[in-house]
């Protein structure tokens, strides 16, 4: 899997997207806090967090005895630049061309 595959794969699961939303709401949270928000075993939550971490979407830091999870927005921004801006610009320029053509015909 390349980096993009890992990010898309990580985002292709509603539980993992929910975990990202939890961190977006409040960042830097330990496992115990996150697992209380999901109806899932601790092991299941850990597995999902690991997938997110391997995709670079979550970065962990140690703080005393706790491991804190932080949302890393960089991979999402890069996917946005690579996959979303590109197509949106395409649409916009197609529309401006259409407008120019229609106006020429008048």
């Amino acid at each position, binding site marked *: 899997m390349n980096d993009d595959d890992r990010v898309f794969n990580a985002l292709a699961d509603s539980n993992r997207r929910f975990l990202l939303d939890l961190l977006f709401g409040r960042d830097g949270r330990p496992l115990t806090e996150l697992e209380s928000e999901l109806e899932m075993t601790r092991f299941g939550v850990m597995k999902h967090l690991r997938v997110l971490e391997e995709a670079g979407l979550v*970065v962990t*830091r140690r703080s005393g005895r706790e491991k804190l999870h932080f949302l890393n927005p960089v991979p999402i921004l890069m996917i946005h630049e690579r996959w979303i801006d590109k197509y949106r610009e395409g649409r916009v320029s197609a529309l401006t061309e259409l407008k120019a053509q229609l106006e020429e015909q008048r």
Partner: protein
Amino acid sequence: MSTSTETTQVYRIYIKASAQAIWDAITKPEWTERYGYTGLVDFDLRSGGAYKVRPTEPFKKESEARFGGELPEVIIDGEVVEADPPHKLVHTFRMLMDPGMAEEPYTRITYEIKELDHMCSLTLTHELEGAPKLAALVRGDQEEYGAGGGHAWVLSELKTLIETGKVFAD
């Protein structure tokens, strides 16, 4: 402790370059003027050394035209806490371009560069206790008002510049 983690932001990016190249791109003005906010950094790279960022002429002109008022000579200041080239840099950071942010306390930025197979990871941790205005800016919340996309955007530009030699604006 819970308050400090809630005000900390962490960003990580993978860059196909040597740790030294990444270190240079962060600490040398001839690099920093080519990506992100284009500020000219001035680091005295030893513990207790000064950290200043000055605007380039085009940035100064654009900013003054867009937001009015005169830009200060130094737009960001702080102090180097730890410099361990090319792997770790810790410095304090205060934004002086905006009076509201200039009143906030010094925040703290840590850069960590780790060598991996054929690439490096660059992790930026920004501890923003007591500085909600700066926190919003570096999170990219004010991008639509022309304030740039914050750390995520800066790091993504830094990666593009190091890996390809150019940025989107070129």
